[in-house]
């Protein structure tokens, strides 16, 4: 198993750092899948993560100047690691001015992702900072847990309102209730609702637009759907808040698929990064 990669462009480095920062705000630990073309940060949606699933996909060529991977076996040319993204984030933060950042898989007292940053100095000699980030190697027999999630058979798909507005509203709602209902229809309307013995609050978003998904099974179901009817799902408000807290950059596209009473599937697309986040319904 071998992995070495290098970033020399400052813009790429900043962008990669922002992505890792976002991931570190979403989860304490996750899986990092390294394949010849892509990197993936994955949460499998199991009980351990509170049922929340995450799939963040980066195209390696958009970030790394050099990228060499030798997977666990010729027919399984990938590496699967369990990482604590905050550690990677911290290491990247100290490397922001680096002329060059190398990341490689090493074996110190345990397997590590080693980050080596060459920092500029006033003299001609560079200062080198090395971070050893401990990781766990995930054996191949467990890889099936971390496959790309299928697009759920959603009832409604809708573009999200500005994330900042959503975040402000959800932050306040969290003071009032532990659970939130998100509902949306094919008329571009979305409501966020909380209701307790003391108070009920509903925020109405209009004219959001609905993404025109292609001619597949889900769209077939949606096509015959009354555009006024809302699909709704009730979730733990902290999970939605956590998703909104993590967003550092305005995505080029942000949308949400709702499977009535089952799941909220959030999708953020940036130029070279896509992030999917699954929040399960609570009773």
């Amino acid at each position: 198993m071998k992995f070495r990669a290098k970033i020399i462009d400052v813009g790429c480095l900043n962008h990669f750092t922002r992505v890792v920062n976002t991931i570190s705000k979403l989860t304490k630990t996750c899986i990092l899948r390294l394949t010849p073309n892509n990197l993936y940060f994955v949460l499998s949606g199991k009980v351990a993560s509170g049922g929340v699933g995450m799939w963040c996909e980066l195209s390696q060529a958009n970030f790394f100047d050099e990228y060499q991977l030798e997977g666990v076996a010729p027919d399984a040319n990938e590496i699967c690691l369990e990482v604590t993204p905050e550690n990677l984030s911290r290491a990247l933060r100290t490397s922001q001015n680096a002329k060059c950042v190398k990341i490689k898989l090493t074996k110190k007292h345990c397997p590590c992702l080693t980050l080596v940053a060459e920092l500029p100095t006033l003299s001609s000699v560079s200062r080198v900072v090395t971070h050893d980030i401990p990781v766990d190697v995930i054996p191949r027999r467990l890889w099936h847990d971390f496959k790309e999630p299928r697009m759920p058979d959603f009832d409604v798909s809708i573009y999200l309102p500005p994330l900042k507005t959503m975040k402000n509203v959800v932050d306040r709602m969290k003071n009032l209730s532990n659970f939130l209902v998100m509902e949306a229809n094919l008329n571009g309307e979305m409501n966020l609702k909380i209701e307790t013995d003391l108070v009920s609050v509903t925020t109405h978003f209009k004219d959001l637009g609905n993404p025109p998904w292609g001619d597949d099974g889900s769209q077939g179901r949606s096509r015959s759907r009354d555009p006024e009817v809302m699909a709704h799902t009730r979730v733990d408000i902290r999970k939605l808040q956590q998703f909104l807290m993590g967003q550092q950059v305005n995505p080029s596209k942000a949308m949400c698929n709702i499977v009535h009473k089952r799941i909220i599937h959030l999708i953020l697309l940036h130029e070279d990064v896509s992030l999917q986040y699954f929040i399960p319904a609570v009773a």
Partner: protein
Amino acid sequence: MPLSTQSQTEGDNYVLVASLDNVRNLSNILKAITFKDHAIFNATPNGLKVTVEDSKCLQANAFIQAEIFQEFTIKEDSVGFQVNLTVLLDCLTIFGGSTVPGVATALRMCYNGYGYPLTLFLEEGGVVTVCKINTQEPEEPIDFEFCSTDVTNKVILQSESLKEAFSELDMTSEVLQITMSPSQPYFRLSTFGNSGNAHYDYPKDSDIMELFQCTKTQTNRYKMSLLKPSTKALALSCKVSVRTDSRGFLSLQYLVRNDDGQICFVEYYCCPDEEVEEE
């Protein structure tokens, strides 16, 4: 009946409707008296009075005159109810607490009378939030029987320097002692904490003293824990009047200018601490 299924026609049955183009003109002043969960609202054609009390020894009132509102319609002489103030504030600030220049949240507050929730419509940038907050029967606010004819000592100060003093007050002191006198030290704030005793003196002819009317020397102590919330009102204010009566009851009145420069008042009444020192 769940709040969310009440019909739209109740909009015709309101006893109180108040609208603001900028909700901060209400939320900021309410923040200055939020030290307990419950607040008593009393609306009259003159405007809104919101009262918060603590252990029958402290009362804070915020006054927002009808003229501050873009619309203030009341169908009865007096409309009263009680709500959870922290819930109300979370609703008023639903779009976030900070200001973005040029963006204001508009508010329309409606109340249909006894047994109905307080309904808020908040709008910012085309997004509308509707809140329905349960109300209770209002308690009768305590009458501290503080009347201006019984005032022994009164000063009006510019808030700036009092803000400094209050931010430095020794919080390990259980009491804040206020001395007012026609002679030295004129107006003194004292604390007795773990690090020792501290005194803040404001002479009667100092620049910040706008009015000085002290008729007799009085020293009174007030529980620090009761007065601490008043610092929020002080922070918002530009002027404060400090008055004591013959019983040693304290009245603090704060002149607050809102975002649009309009004036509102906040007042605090506090009972003196009964445990007087032996010296």
